[in-house]
């Protein structure tokens, strides 16, 4: 039984329509508040009736998200939101399915499901709230925490090498890969809209500040004083420039990246022009992952790294079933009878 999607109603939805009567219980100052606000701002603009949204989450601070969104939602179990959403989307391609997950949920306990969802390319939107820490369990290091990090479970410093989430997504052949941050509402809204617009699996990593257990993890990228020099905002068809006055640019010399100063004899024409459809260059972009404390480090890119068109799992599944139905009538009695029958009088 498929439910048919009602035609988009003529009423205009507002962010308020997407809020619930449940008290939001994140810690005061948590980056999640901003992400919730941006999602509530973007969803009404997508032209989709509220009942056709489904938000699936796993476990962790971020995974409380569905309780605060007045759409269909499921707060499931640790790491499995991606797998549950896969089944939901296979069953109901008509729905707009969003997955809200954290760095522990999607890259540690649920890492397997994340990569498999990406390779299958279900048309869902993954919002990965990356705060590089386990918040709900009160402060252990996560699979994205930097090396040597001191946490409750690593009093002598973490000896784990962290994941680079976007490089991992590239490795899993994701068809839409982007990064944004909680502290830049406009950029985040744009990235949410772009994630939705992509027909296929969208992987959006959102740098999210945990002001209790990992405060300031991304401040070098998000705070006014350093943002312009440390963050590189990617735009399709535009050269890679950054700096307070857009005076710095990135040039490709073979496979090497060179930062050049446009005020010191270099021209914009020399710079790398971002092309979202370029698989190889996207790999290089995801590897711009330097520790900002190092000398001569590269800025961290934000924006859409890569987008490709590949058939979605649910589209192919629907086609395959249609093809099978066209070829062979579904006759239950014939199936039960089989090919070899004998009669006992």
């Amino acid at each position, binding site marked *: *039984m498929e439910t048919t999607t009602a035609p988009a109603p003529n009423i205009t939805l507002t962010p308020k329509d997407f809020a619930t009567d449940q008290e939001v219980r994140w810690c005061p100052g948590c980056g999640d508040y901003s992400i919730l606000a941006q999602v509530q701002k973007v969803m009404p603009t997508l032209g989709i009736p509220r009942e056709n949204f*489904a938000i699936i989450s796993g476990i962790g601070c971020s995974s409380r998200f569905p309780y605060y969104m*007045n759409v269909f939602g*499921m707060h499931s179990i640790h790491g499995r939101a991606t*797998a549950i959403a896969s*089944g939901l989307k296979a069953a*109901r391609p008509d729905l707009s399915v969003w997955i809200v997950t954290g760095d522990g949920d999607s890259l540690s306990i649920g890492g*397997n499901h994340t990569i*498999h969802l990406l390779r299958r390319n279900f048309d869902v939107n993954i919002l990965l709230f990356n705060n590089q820490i386990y918040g709900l369990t009160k402060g252990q290091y996560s699979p994205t925490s930097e090396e040597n990090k001191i946490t409750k479970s690593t009093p002598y410093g973490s000896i784990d090498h962290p994941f680079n989430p976007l490089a991992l997504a590239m490795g899993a052949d994701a068809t839409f890969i982007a990064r944004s941050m909680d502290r830049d509402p406009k950029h985040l809204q744009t990235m949410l809209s772009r994630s939705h617009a992509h027909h296929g699996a969208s992987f959006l990593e959102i740098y999210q500040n945990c002001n209790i257990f990992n405060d300031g993890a991304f401040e070098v990228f998000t705070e006014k004083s350093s943002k312009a020099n440390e963050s590189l905002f990617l735009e399709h068809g535009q050269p890679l420039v950054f700096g307070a006055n857009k005076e710095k640019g990135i040039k490709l010399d073979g496979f090497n990246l060179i930062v050049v100063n446009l005020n010191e004899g270099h021209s914009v024409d020399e710079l790398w022009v971002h092309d979202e459809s370029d698989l190889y260059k996207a790999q290089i972009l995801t590897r711009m992952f330097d520790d900002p404390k190092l000398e001569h480090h590269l800025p961290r890119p934000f924006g859409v790294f890569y987008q490709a068109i590949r058939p979605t799992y649910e589209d192919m599944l629907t086609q395959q079933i249609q093809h099978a139905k066209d070829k062979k009538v579904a006759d239950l009695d014939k199936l039960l009878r089989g090919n070899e029958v004998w009669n006992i009088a």
Partner: protein
Amino acid sequence: MERKQEVLQDVVIKFAGDSGDGMQLTGTQFTNNTALLGSDLSTFPDFPAEIRAPQGTLPGVSGYQLRFSSDSIYTPGDSLDVLVAMNAAALKTNLKNLKKGGKIIVNTDGFDTKNLRLANYPDGVNPIEDESLQGYEVIGMDITKMTREALKDYQMGTKEKDRAKNMFVLGFLYWMYGRDMNNTEKFLEEKFGRKPDILESNLKALRAGYNYGDTTETFTTQYKVEKAKIEAGSYRSIMGNQALAYGLIAASVKSGLTIFLGTYPITPASDILHELSKQKNFGIKTFQAEDEIAGISAAIGASYGGHLGVTTTSGPGIALKSEAMGLAMMLEIPLVIVDVQRGGPSTGLPTKTEQSDLLQAYYGRNGESPIPVISASTPSDCFEAVYEAVRIAVEHMTPVIFLSDGYIANGAEPWKYPSSNDLRTIHVSYKTELGHGETKFQPYQRDENLVRPWAIPGTAGLEHRIGGLEKENITGNVSYDPENHQLMVKIRQEKVDKIALNIPEQTLDNGPEKGDVLVLGWGSTYGVIKTAVESLLKEGYSVAHAHLRYLRPFPRNLGEILRNYKTVLIPEINNGQLIKIIRDQYLVDAKGYNKIMGIPITKTELVEEIKQLTSSRTATASI
């Protein structure tokens, strides 16, 4: 030459050979041929966990046991009348099960020095040449040589020619039992239609085997088993996993729900995935997930979206799925979890049978997590039993665990298949709008059976959130309130208990309503218990048989039945699991009979056990 035909009542044949010898195919072909003649039958395939264990060795032996009879039969038989041994290892592994005076058809080429050594016979010992097989009727033939000879005109390698050996054997047995070979010829044509060489060589070997029996003067007797006197109707042969897949499809057709199977391959459950994947024209969606957990999680997602989510696995997979099963229980959405049990614990005995997941199904989750449990007792019973599992899942908004096992899954039997019109309707009702007086949707508002509404995404006005956290009664909002938690735990238990009102009462399969011994079984022990009790009743013992399909909740009259007998005996292929639950729920001092060898209980063993429990034959015993 004079030929005589001898009519037999009951025959047990075992085809045994190297796992590359094609014994499973030979067995299933002979089975289908037998079925078409109208004999009753029961099969027991028995194969190694390794796909190809080293050739010629004892662990590499693959067997297929078939029993057919002009009587109604319920087991593949305790001991063999005929053993087909393609090599020395096959003989060594199976000889102990051959009746005294039984026939051994041996491929003499499989008893050369190398094969004898691989089968661990001492140097210089060859059982088909020494006296050790005295008391058996040994029919030796060089099947390898004769097959090669028959195919001498074919342009193919010796290795390829040798692959047709099993067809030679099959042809010979078809002669021995006076069979027509049409069904196998047709089967080969369908299977190898596009490979004329292979088709021709197989057909040729098949006919050569038949003609060898027909023309060689050594064999003077053909055997015949009459049609069984079974209930009138149209029959087909069916295997357990196949019946299970068909049951799901039928439930899909009759409920109007699309089946979504989220699963991960595991022995002995994978055939359900294979079968359902073939039936996409019924709209079935199959999803081979990245792991067991993803399989059930995707099925939960599909059920949330309004499909019927199904996941299939075996014991180790259930262990992995436990947390997600708890979520489905908490969400209160329909889901069918199929466990085709195998020998455990851990990886255990993947290709052997066991009933050792009952306690896992009952208790294997964190917290108070009641989930209904249903079991199948024979291959064809999988159809009806899984249909019931779907009905309960959908009508009671609950996950349901379905227990089958390796013996049922791979066994075959005649099936008086139903007509789709005779299948009970499965009622599905999505909630589509707010009811009168409702201002806000309450996802945990319940009906008289404590069943909550199924409101699927896409339904305007019913947007709501559910999850694994404890929820407030009625509203479903997150709640940590102590009284509410106690209330919700009790409600979820009562909801499952109330299913007892919607399932049939327990009936006796056989025997008097009161008496000395009640043999209480579940699952694949059905056939052996039935056979043992039937024979004891004929001898005048006061013994009855009840077989459970519904294991949680139990049928509402079960306690009453248990109290009608002096002794309750519970035979199980485990270390005593149902017995623990029965003792717990009914305070009955039940006795166990437990065999934990990865193989079924035999009639002889069980008859012996029951006799020890019943002091005397009573005049009141029904016959």
